[in-house]
């Protein structure tokens, strides 16, 4: 298993966001997480990527423990240097892209591989150009983020995450900040990655996409996993009333 999260708890002050969530992701699996806003989907992703610290539970990557809860109920993370090694296992694509505006597209893709992973400039640039070709934006290598459309920026962001050669890629509502006519080009590259058996976890509101691309769908509400399973089952034959209610809203 690439990622295992066990009994994850997270609260902000008195507000419980995650109430003991467990999920695992196998190699080559594409998992979609759906659910109403405030259900904790994004927080779960932020916990998995260490942007938020958990208040209970365990996180393992590649079978190695990154965080666990000790006998006193206190969460213990590995040392921050070791945590940085865990970061090489995953990539994260943000809703707001978060490209580095002072770097051109190529630099956005090569700076971390060179500075963080100490790969050679030539190799990093070659990998980057290959990824840009795959994303259909190789002609934008020397452009700066502000010169690109939202869809192009998000594809650069996906390429930037892939340039680190992660084992698993997380997407936090990758199309939510895009104009409707631009979501297609981003979903297309994610679909392409799924065909190549890239392991991915996608928090999304694109139900048709989740149904078509994922191997498994997780429906979250109120900080718990209400239902999960094969997309056809969850979308066409949901077992739980809460799931049915949520999906009805989308059918309208």
């Amino acid at each position: 298993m690439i990622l295992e999260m066990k009994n994850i708890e997270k609260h902000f002050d008195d507000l419980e966001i995650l109430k003991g969530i467990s999920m695992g992701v196998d190699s080559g699996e594409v998992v979609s997480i759906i659910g109403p806003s405030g259900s904790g989907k994004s927080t779960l992703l932020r916990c998995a990527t260490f942007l938020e610290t958990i208040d209970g539970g365990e996180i393992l990557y590649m079978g190695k423990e990154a965080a666990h809860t000790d006998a006193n109920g206190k969460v213990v993370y590995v040392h921050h240097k070791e945590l940085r090694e865990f970061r090489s296992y995953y990539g994260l694509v943000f809703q707001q892209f978060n490209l580095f505006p002072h770097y051109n597209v190529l630099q956005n893709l090569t700076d971390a591989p060179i500075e963080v992973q100490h790969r050679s400039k030539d190799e990093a640039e070659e990998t980057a150009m290959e990824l840009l070709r795959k994303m259909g934006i190789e002609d934008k290598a020397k452009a700066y983020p502000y010169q690109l459309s939202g869809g192009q920026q998000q594809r650069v962001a996906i390429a930037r995450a892939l340039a680190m050669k992660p084992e698993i890629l997380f997407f936090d509502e990758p199309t939510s900040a895009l104009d409707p006519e631009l979501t297609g080009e981003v979903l297309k590259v994610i679909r392409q990655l799924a065909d190549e058996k890239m392991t991915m976890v996608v928090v999304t509101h694109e139900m048709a996409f989740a149904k078509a691309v994922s191997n498994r769908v997780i429906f979250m509400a109120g900080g718990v996993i209400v239902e999960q399973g094969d997309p056809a089952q969850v979308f066409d034959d949901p077992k739980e009333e809460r799931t049915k209610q949520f999906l009805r809203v989308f059918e309208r």
Partner: protein
Amino acid sequence: MTLSTMLSTMAAGMLRTCGIFALTLIGSLPLGMVVALLRKSRSPIVRGIIRVYISVIRGTPLMLQLLVWYFGPFYLFEWSIRGWRFPALILGFIVNYAAYFAEIYRGGIESMPVGQYEAAEVLGYTKTQTFMRIILPQVIKRIMPSITNEVITLVKDTSLAFTLAYQEVFSLAKQISASQTSFMPFVIAGVFYFIANYAVQFAMERIEKALNYYR
């Protein structure tokens, strides 16, 4: 006194003014960054000290601070202050300007969207790498207009060196004007400050333009 003797006498003062200006910037621009970072220190004692330092510096006249730097060692410790005039002057300017620059840096750093930090963190950058490679370059671009303001003020503030009877252009202008009963030295000094600031604005505009390759 002919105009040309006046000019050549004052030229030495102009050089000294440029000296104060340059040394102050060389010292205070980096020191301001150190202060800005210390202000975000984890230790509440360090944060407290920095806060007091900034509010004292901003709350008292630079002229008074210069006098304290110069005469303080004598009145407080009865040390000899021979040869201390110029070091005291430069220290006073640097410590004063560092406080203002620190606040500008802080404003710039705090204006950075959290997404930039998060993107860098997820990519595995260390805190230092994140600051040096991602945050600082963008902060510099954002704060350039405020820095320009401060640098222009510094050009004019160098005239406060007359408080310590340091012979920069303004002190000389006053002396020559009094001894020659002439208004001319002030005109010369005025033109000098204006040209100096014109050069500063020109240089800063060039830097801002060079940073305009991205938005």
